[in-house]
């Protein structure tokens, strides 16, 4: 048994050694993607293109507009002369946000009353719109509070209502600066591993089927389990190497802290890789050509990615889809890798995810071995 697996391993690594493009495919794209994700994938909103229509033209209105412009969140791209121009700017996507200060704005403030401020937001990208609106609310709120305090002081509390407010004492745990890179980078390690290893495994076996070498191997006394172990073990090792490299780029280049125990992450990675290899194997048993494998991979990997909680919260999904997330190994691995990176928790907390991955991995792997047995008939 071990003799045969050993010979398969030797063969796989020899082929890999000869295949220069495979070595490139293994190393370069994951690193490039990691760098891309690290820089480009962010939920944060900066420099929202803003058009301003100041119909009041007072000291107060100008101060408010200045508050917007001086925050890093908004960037003044145009000053409109009338409402029509504000609408044009938003419609032509020159601006994503329009601020309209109506006439009489300052007058109301000076009387100690609330004054309206209109904000028009391009809601096409609902996420960005919501976040930008939040910042707009914060800036106008702060402005209002500051003005009221000032007015109360100047008029001996005759004007400007006594302020009653609830003060939020915010503490962001694990990611104090709400750096979305800290959230994305560990997730990318998991996603990239999934994509690379499923592809490698599926293609490796389908290629042998296509070329005809698989048939030659099937007539030898090798048992399906020996063949599958011999064929997947190299990719298991490659998977571990890949996680290490991509994780190292995340830590060294992007300075994402790793607070947990590396051994806990190693265990989680091993369990995750078993599921991932099994998925690649299952795809390979269903496909006769590499083209079919390519299409199947796309079909399988995209839903796994969307349902994993990588960027869309699972708790916001409809109940039926939430059930499906339970059979998505990436879901569990993302919890494990994010928690070990940022929270530094151990097995006492992560055992449910580890157990789920172990069960999924064994189940999928067994299924792959059973299916492989019959695959030529």
């Amino acid at each position, binding site marked *: 048994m071990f003799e045969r697996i050993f010979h398969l391993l030797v*063969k796989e690594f020899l082929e890999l050694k000869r295949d220069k493009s495979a070595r490139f495919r293994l190393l370069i794209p994951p690193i490039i993607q990691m760098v891309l994700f690290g820089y480009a994938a962010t939920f944060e909103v900066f420099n929202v293109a803003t058009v301003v229509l100041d119909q009041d033209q007072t000291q107060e209105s100008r101060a408010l507009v200045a508050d917007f412009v001086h925050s890093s969140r908004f960037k003044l791209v145009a000053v409109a002369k009338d409402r029509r121009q504000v609408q044009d700017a938003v419609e032509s996507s020159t601006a994503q946000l329009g601020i309209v200060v109506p006439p009489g704005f300052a007058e109301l403030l000076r009387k100690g009353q609330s004054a309206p401020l209109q904000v028009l937001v391009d809601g096409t990208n609902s996420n960005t719109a919501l976040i930008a609106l939040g910042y707009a609310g914060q800036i106008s709120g702060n402005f209002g509070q500051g003005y009221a305090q000032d007015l109360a002081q100047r008029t001996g509390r005759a004007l400007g209502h006594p302020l009653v407010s609830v003060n939020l004492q915010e503490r962001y745990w694990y990611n104090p600066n709400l750096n979305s890179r800290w959230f994305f980078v560990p997730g990318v390690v998991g996603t990239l591993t999934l994509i690379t290893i499923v592809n490698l495994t599926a293609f490796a076996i389908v290629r042998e089927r296509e070329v005809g070498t698989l048939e030659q191997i099937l007539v030898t006394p090798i048992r399906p389990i020996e063949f599958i172990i011999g064929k997947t073990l190299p990719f298991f090792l490659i998977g571990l190497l890949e996680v290490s490299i991509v994780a190292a780029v995340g830590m060294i280049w992007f300075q994402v802290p790793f607070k947990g125990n590396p051994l806990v992450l190693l265990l989680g990675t091993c369990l995750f890789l078993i599921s991932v290899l099994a998925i690649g194997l299952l795809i390979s048993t269903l496909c006769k050509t590499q083209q079919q494998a390519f299409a199947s991979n796309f079909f399988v990997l995209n839903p796994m990615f969307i349902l994993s909680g990588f960027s869309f919260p699972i708790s916001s999904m409809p109940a039926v889809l939430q059930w499906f997330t339970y059979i998505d190994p990436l879901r569990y691995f993302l919890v494990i890798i994010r928690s070990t990176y940022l929270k530094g928790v151990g097995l006492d907390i992560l055992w449910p995810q580890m157990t789920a991955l172990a069960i999924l991995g064994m189940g999928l792997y067994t299924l792959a071995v059973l299916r492989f047995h019959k695959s030529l008939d």
Partner: protein
Amino acid sequence: MTAGDGQPQIVVDALVKRFGEFAALDGVSFTVGRGEIMGFLGPNGAGKSTLIRILCGLLRPTAGRVLVGGMDVAKNPETVRQRIGYMSQKFSLYGDLSVVENLRFFGGIYGVPSGEMEERLRFAVDMAGLGGREDALVATLAGGWKQRLALGAAILHRPLTLFLDEPTSGVDPASRRRFWDLIHTLSEDGVSILVSTHYMDEAEYCRRIALINHGRLIALGTPRELKQHSLGGELLSVEGERIGDAMVQVQKSPGVKDVAMFGSILHALVDQAQLRVPEIEALLVARGVAGARVRRIEPSLEDSFVHLVGTQFASGETSP
């Protein structure tokens, strides 16, 4: 049983293989003796590869039994595989591995003991005539070498039975000749060999030939037996200018059972050569065929093949 000593090495008994509605093999039975070379002849899609794959345990029979070395292939596939060698239609060694790496790999998964490995590798390299090119990548080898190497890889574990599925397709004649010499040597050592081919000249090298069409065995015997008895008549060769145009007339002529075109010559199967030669000659002259010449010839395997396959078509075999 026409050959071999004692038990037959391969027994195929009432074998049926269906893929859905399609019967790829429809009740095939035969045996192959120890050290016998059995040739499988048939048009593409006749079921040759399916039969060989069932014998190797790659496909399961729908009905019937297949024994190799007295053992049921469907029940003990792994034990059987230890004792058989197989060369598939497609070349199936690793192009990006060297000659020796390929052999070592297949020897390893066939379980050749490490003590014997070097000797077996040496044997296979010598047999393939690849001495001095042990480290060449297989992808760089020419067709004949690749094919002998594949044969070498298939016999590393000293199998008693060898299945070769069109092993010489796409190989030059000299290499084919050399390949058959190797097969004969193996046969003399007691290895039973079942080989499919569509080269008629190769079929002549076989001890017995099984002709298969539409999943059925339509003739079985030595090349000599097939040539003499399968036709059911005597064979005439008909020559002349633009002979194709006269084919229909020859077909309608009395006593003619079958006519087939071989290049620029017609082969006509008739009941009695002596009687029909002058008749057909007269017919052609009457039709104005210049240089008409009709004579009796010894049938070749190809004649039997065309006749038998044609008969099957004519008798209304409708399976796809």
